[in-house]
């Protein structure tokens, strides 16, 4: 088992290394290098004086061979130095750190709300498959799953915030205060994210729970008199949730994009504005650092889901053990 976990973690680190290389290579392929981008941004349109370009290239270290630059970049990443923004000249670490706490609060609150909602609704519908409640919930899940997050956001703003005047339309958080001190501003963004990310796990859990409920060992347990909450919580839930761990990991990983969208929709003071600004201005150091953080996040989430599946399912454990012995 330990060997399996070690090999999985090693695999995850390797994947991250591959992604890092890919990001570097992609940015190497850019037409014009960072120096050109910086100078163009200065407002000097037209021809750039070659000596100015050469000076800046030297200053940015772009005249060194690609291999050397790659090594120093990776070395910087490993030692926590994420580079310098081309646009503002600030260290990338500072740019990202300035507002990451707000984004993390939003993501964490969403996860804390979404996972129980998905599990409970999925099991609830799965135990009454074909009934009116199940049909209603399943149809709603299918319909909502398809709608892009920003559309859900503006519709919620129009109806809940402007129509019913229940909650703020814009999630303003004064600098230096935590959004947790103003829970009202979190409600609509979190509802929006849960609506986007919960339907898929709900559908998977529902389908698996329904399959298990009709299966031989659950029918046998029923014939032995086991029923109610105990039957669902012990005989059905672990397998159903284990089956949905991958989709749930997908939902959690999908938070990255979801949070970016929702922050834009509600003008929530998170990372999104900096990041999207950096993307549209082609500020590579920021995008590259963010890309590696995002990739690391996605890889870690999926790895955690796979290891959690081992914890939940002895059958999966056996498959791993016999497969590795």
């Amino acid at each position, binding site marked *: 088992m330990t060997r399996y976990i070690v090999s999985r973690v090693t695999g995850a680190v390797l994947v991250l290394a591959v992604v890092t290389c890919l990001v570097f290579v992609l*940015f190497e392929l850019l037409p014009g290098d960072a120096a050109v981008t910086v100078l163009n941004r200065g407002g000097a349109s037209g021809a750039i004086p070659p000596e100015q370009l050469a000076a800046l290239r030297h200053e940015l270290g772009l005249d060194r061979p690609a291999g050397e630059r790659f090594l120093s970049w990776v070395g910087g990443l490993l030692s926590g130095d994420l580079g310098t923004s081309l646009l503002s000249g600030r260290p990338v670490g500072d740019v990202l750190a300035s507002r990451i706490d707000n984004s993390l609060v939003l993501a964490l609150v969403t996860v804390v709300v979404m996972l129980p909602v998905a599990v409970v609704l999925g099991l609830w519908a799965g135990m009454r498959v074909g009934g009116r409640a199940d049909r209603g919930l399943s149809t709603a899940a*299918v319909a909502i799953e398809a709608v892009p997050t920003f559309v859900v956001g503006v519709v919620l703003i129009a109806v809940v915030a402007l129509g019913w005047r229940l909650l703020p339309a814009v999630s303003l958080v004064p600098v230096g205060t935590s959004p947790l001190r103003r829970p009202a501003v979190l409600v609509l963004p979190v509802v929006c994210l849960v609506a986007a990310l919960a339907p898929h796990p709900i559908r998977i859990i529902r389908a698996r729970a329904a399959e298990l409920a009709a299966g031989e*060992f659950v029918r*046998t347990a029923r014939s032995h008199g086991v029923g109610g909450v105990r039957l669902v919580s012990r005989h059905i839930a672990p397998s159903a949730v284990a089956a949905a761990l991958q989709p749930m990991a997908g939902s959690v990983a999908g938070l990255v994009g979801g949070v970016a969208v929702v922050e834009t929709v509600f003008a929530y003071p998170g990372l999104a504005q900096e990041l999207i600004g950096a993307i549209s201005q082609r500020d590579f150091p920021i995008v590259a650092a963010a890309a590696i953080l995002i990739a690391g996040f996605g890889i870690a989430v999926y790895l955690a889901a796979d290891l959690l599946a081992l914890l939940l399912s002895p059958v999966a454990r056996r498959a791993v053990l016999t497969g590795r012995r």
Partner: protein
Amino acid sequence: MRTRLVPAVVAVLVLLVVVIGPFVAPWPPGETVGRPFTGASAEHLLGTDKLGRDVLSRLLHGGWRLLLITAAALTCAYAVALPLGLLAGLRRRADGWVMRPVDVLVVLPWFLLLAVLATVAGRGAPALLVAGALATLPWVVRLVRTATVEEASAGYVEAAVARAEPWRRIAWREVVPNIGPVVLADAGMRLTATLSVVTVGGYLGLGLPPDVPDWALAVATNQSGITLQPWAVLAPALMIVALVVSVNLLVDTRDSRAVPAVARLARSGTGTLNGRMGEDDTVVEVNGLTVRGAEGRLLLEGADLALCAGHGLAVVGASGAGKSTLARAIANSLGPGLVATGDVQLRRPGGGPGRVLGWVPQDPALALNPSLRISAQLRDVLRAHRRPADAAAVRAALSGVGLPADREFMRRYPHELSGGQQQRVLVALALVGDPAVLVLDEPTTGLDPAAVTGVLDLLRNLRARGISLIIVTHALPIVLDLVDDVAVLDAGRIISVLPAAPRTGPAVVQEARRSARPSAAPLLTVHELAAGYGQTQVIADVDLSVCAGECLGVVGRSGSGKSTIARCLVGLHAPSRGTVTLDGTALARRAASRSRAQRGAIQFVFQNPARSLNPRRTVGEELRAPVRIFGTAEEPADLLHRVGLGVELLDRRTDRLSGGQQQRVAVARALAARPRLLICDEVTASLDPQSRQVVIDLLDRLCNESGLAILFVSHDVEAVASLTDRILTVTEGRLVTPRLIQPARTR
């Protein structure tokens, strides 16, 4: 029908807007025609936007780019993903190379792809297109691979593999037509997911330039004026909603129709599970019990039974006669979709409260929860019967059925027990709460001889304690001393209930029809064969030989490894050790490495007749495939004649045949290669009783007339006994000498 109509109409309307819209828009989309953010008026039906442009006109112009980018992204994704998925699903060696990058792509959030691509390529349609395609690609590859792997286990694909056809031909001719529906059903989901990436990219300002009319951009641009002019935001937002929701609902209804609905357990009648006052000592009384399956098919008709306290009843009959259905209906554990009517009354002798009936289903591997320790399962049942659920009670329950009751054993999972131990755990679960009667479905099937003796001793013990028994069995002789009466079922009816005597019941085995079997040098010899999946060994140390013209039976319960043996012989599964020798020549491990003559000499008939033949092809096409490969001069019409079918079936698609006809065509397809050994893997398992008999008679005739050797793998003990010369039993991957089953031909 109605549920699909609404989304279909909405989807068509949205598409009409997208296609016709640009031609009917009242104003030029880019022109400022009024003041910003004015409300609806006769001139501007949806008002104006941030720059005073007509919202309706921009709405009508705003869909086609979105759909075009999405369509292009999907086309790219499918063009790459379909071949990759087929390759990964069919070629084991390519699997890792394809799936590892795909797994990496799955793990990366789509936003990362979009961010990197938009930075590298700059904002614009290409970045959206590539991001959309890359976000879709891995899921399509995974789906196609899964569907292909599923399809690869179908008989017609395996038959093509065993014929050693090239994989591209297999992919194109056998797999693609049959995975089409699965891929199409998923395409709607992929469409909305890709559309989501494309619109979100547009909304975040990473897509088209800001002045282009586009629904996603319109939402972003006009959001600042949502209080003044909500329709400038809501109208494009609702167009997106209408499009994606209608498409998703349309696809979803089709999807749920393809999957058979899981029906709820239903049971009517006045059957009571708990004790009620009774005048006599009858513990089980069944009156007019009828069970219907899907489409009203009768599985059990008007069954009447009564069982007195302390008595035993055996239920016998041919496969498919309704024995298990009767037992399940009494135990209230019918499968999904089955409906029981009639009356089952259960009483405790003396009428006290408490559990009356304990149910022991047939296959312990399925009936025990694989993810709960056996102590936990026992505790749950103890609690359900309001008994103390402590370690002492669990220990007592286990030792009551002769199992070790130490802590280590209690903490085991079902898969850590042997078949006999699993069976005993099932009995222990059924015995919690001291039921008056135990209903057991095939309690000895598939156990090795020692375990059979153990289970029989346990039942004898229970009987002596005054517990009534209802035993469904194929092997009446070995349970005769446990029962007082024998109920005989045939085609869903109880035809007689007789006192148990050594001669009652139908002869489980039929009379020998042949005096002597041809004896010759072994045609096929297997020496120390071992095989497994991954690192799990399934079979070990298998030695057997088949002579020309001999019919050899291989029996064993599901999962015992008997199919793996059969698949090793024909080269569909590579053994890890051991040799298979044909006519004194050792065979290669895989069919593709064997010579054409060797492949033709051993032919395989698959379990599920519906999956044995390619449902998209005609009978004639199926029969001509082996003729083409093996170059035999067999005529499809002759082949059909030999299996007792008419030539009119030649042009019929194979999915229009009945199960029995399909299985006979499958035999004909095998005969087209002029085999000397026919391996039949559970060929009667999915057939109704009549078709089953027809197929058994056909195999018997082939064996008698043409000197064809047959290896008949089955858990259908009666079929094996009536057909074969010799029987081998497989238990946990090893061959053991059979007991208590006598093949007909040697008597």
